[in-house]
């Protein structure tokens, strides 16, 4: 993809040691008739260049809200506090105009439903050239050439013919390939895939995830993979953050999270996943209760009402993140699952 390199924006230029993305204390409140809904509560994490972070959680856990806030598309009237630093620049306080050189250009996103994220009345070609013409100032002919390269990059056969087609003429998998091509148009440093394969069949999901992984390796992107499916993130991420009720319950390297998680919610989530390798009739374990109501939520741990190891102190204040034995590991729990190895810190 040498042709793409000449139009690329300057690559990640953060000083050594500085992560590409640093989110700290991010809190989002959305006004509702019943009172403010705290969609995100004091969320912090870091992402180094070329690395992949998995964000997992159930509906309402805040995973989509988090990546949308990073992308600058938090809901209207919401209040955002805290910090999102990308490549050394604070995005939350950046003027709208300056932020445009980040959002859609250096940070790009692929959404869950390719049908609604594509404009049905514009051709694929028109939608694929829009970003490169606006952000990179390419002329029509050059932008079209670039669009052909992009469709080729996402393994769409007959790219020139596809450019003249409309989204409804493509299958769901092809449409999602087009949205990935759109996201890659300006050669971003960070790609966010928000449940990008959830609406697809399992065989197509695998094709798309393999495609994203290949592109990431080839172009050195950092990737945030948002999914409710632990199976999707297990083999494809370096680190995982588990979100619950708008907070990070636990984060660790993927290996540590699966093998040595300490948060009871992580454990319950892992046990609830139906597995192919579990014999028939071995039903997945259930998590009693329902996800929390985030409007006027009580103090204390969000998971406490459903937690098997909750005690009185869990209901009093939100537990602060505690470091685990592994340097990548942190969990927000007062009564964590005991480890087999004695953990003294």
């Amino acid at each position, binding site marked *: 993809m040498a042709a793409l390199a000449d139009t690329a924006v300057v690559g990640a230029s953060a000083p050594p040691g500085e992560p590409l993305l640093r989110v700290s204390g991010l809190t989002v409140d959305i006004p509702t008739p019943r009172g403010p809904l705290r969609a995100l509560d004091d969320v912090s994490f870091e992402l180094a260049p070329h690395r992949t972070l998995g964000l997992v959680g159930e509906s309402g856990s805040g995973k989509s809200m988090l990546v949308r806030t990073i992308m600058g598309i938090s809901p209207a009237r919401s209040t955002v506090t805290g910090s999102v630093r990308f490549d050394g620049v604070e995005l939350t306080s950046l003027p709208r105009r300056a932020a445009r050189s980040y959002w859609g250009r250096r940070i790009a996103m692929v959404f869950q439903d390719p049908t609604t994220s594509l404009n049905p009345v514009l051709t694929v070609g028109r939608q694929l050239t829009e970003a490169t013409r606006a952000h990179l100032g390419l002329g029509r002919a050059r932008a079209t050439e670039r669009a052909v390269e992009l469709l080729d990059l996402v393994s769409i056969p007959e790219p020139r013919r596809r450019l003249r087609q409309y989204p409804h003429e493509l299958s769901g998998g092809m449409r999602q390939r087009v949205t990935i091509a759109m996201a890659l148009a300006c050669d971003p440093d960070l790609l966010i895939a928000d449940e990008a394969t959830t609406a697809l069949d399992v065989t197509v999901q695998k094709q798309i995830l*393999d495609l994203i992984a290949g592109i990431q390796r080839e172009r050195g992107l950092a990737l945030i993979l948002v999914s409710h499916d632990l199976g999707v993130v297990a083999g494809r991420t370096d680190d995982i953050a588990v979100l619950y009720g708008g907070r990070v319950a636990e984060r660790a390297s993927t290996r540590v999270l699966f093998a040595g998680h300490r948060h009871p919610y992580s454990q319950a989530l892992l046990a609830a996943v139906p*597995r192919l390798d579990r014999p028939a009739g071995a039903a997945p374990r259930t998590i009693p209760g329902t996800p929390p109501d985030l409007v006027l939520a009580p103090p204390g741990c969000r998971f406490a009402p459903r937690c098997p190891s909750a005690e009185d102190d869990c209901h009093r204040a939100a537990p602060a993140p505690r470091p685990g034995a592994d340097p990548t590991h942190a969990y927000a729990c007062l009564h964590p699952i005991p480890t087999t190895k004695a953990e003294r810190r």
Partner: protein
Amino acid sequence: MTQTTTAHAAVTQPAVTQPAMAQAPARPGALLRVEHLVQRYRARGAVVHAVSDVSFDLLPGECLGLVGESGCGKSTTGRAILQLPRPTAGRVVLDGEDLCALDRRRLRHRRHRLQMIFQDPVAALNPRRRVRDLVVEGLDIQRQLPGGERAARADALLRDVGLDPELVGDRRPHELSGGQCQRVAIARALAVGPDVLVCDEPVASLDVSVQAQVLTLLARLRAEHRLALLFVAHDLAVVRAVVDRVAVMYLGTIAEIGPVDAVYDTPAHPYTRALLDAVPVPDPAVDPEQAPSLTGELPSPLAPPSGCPFRTRCPRAADRCAAERPLPRAVGPDHHVACHFPLVDPLPDSTSGDGSHEDGFGRPAGAGERAGRDRA
């Protein structure tokens, strides 16, 4: 969905061109037998071959999974069993009675024996009615119950599905979560005392923690009410957790059917293998990119390929696959595969021979095609 929008245009004449196919031998004591089911729709001058000659049976209290990708005909099959809409051809035999042959009035009197729940439980419930009324609506249609008995019955049903009638009985669907709505839909289906419950993607729209709750509930109800379940789902891991037997569908046909452990542990059809390989494994030690990917796209059901429907994407496809439609052959006890080159050797005494000599009805292969459907 295509099948709902084109439902009115269902082709009702019997299929005369459909080749008769062998089926796995019916098991004794079957509660429900689906024989040579065909469902076709007319859409803009073309014919959609949604289901092409599907046969299987269901024992009392048994759970059969129907799996496959979007457009494989699994939902259409589930609905055709309930005569929603009536199938183009084939028989749906419940306790020895062919539902396809019943007139509307007599079919209505059988409706209580077959019930269905859907993927989107919120959309499946009338938003203007209260939970208690929703649950007993089927009973109201069946017979008039006195007010007190009616309310008591509704409360008992709600408790049976793990809901507190005091708390939810007077609410409307939008005041409930998705998981609660699915429980209401299940209670509503159970109200009329069915023998067969068709579950069309019952947990696909639910979160994983709630998913497990609903699956556990279905398993308990199945045991308590001796319910036979037809479990239509795209998620192979979910299916493994609940079913006894599984049928893998591809482009309107059954590629493989058998006990779930046999099909998952020793898949005989290359398509089953590809589907299983694509399922993400929640284990960081497994590199998902190592598993081979299925290439190409699902062919159009407007013009299915000749011979084996999977041949256009199959790594083992040969000339024969384009020429001849593979017939189901036994590869294990109650385990059948429709493939010329299965991954597991067929049993020597396979009921339908090796597929090239007989079609299972003791006739040479292709005879059925020439003669048309013998039943019609």
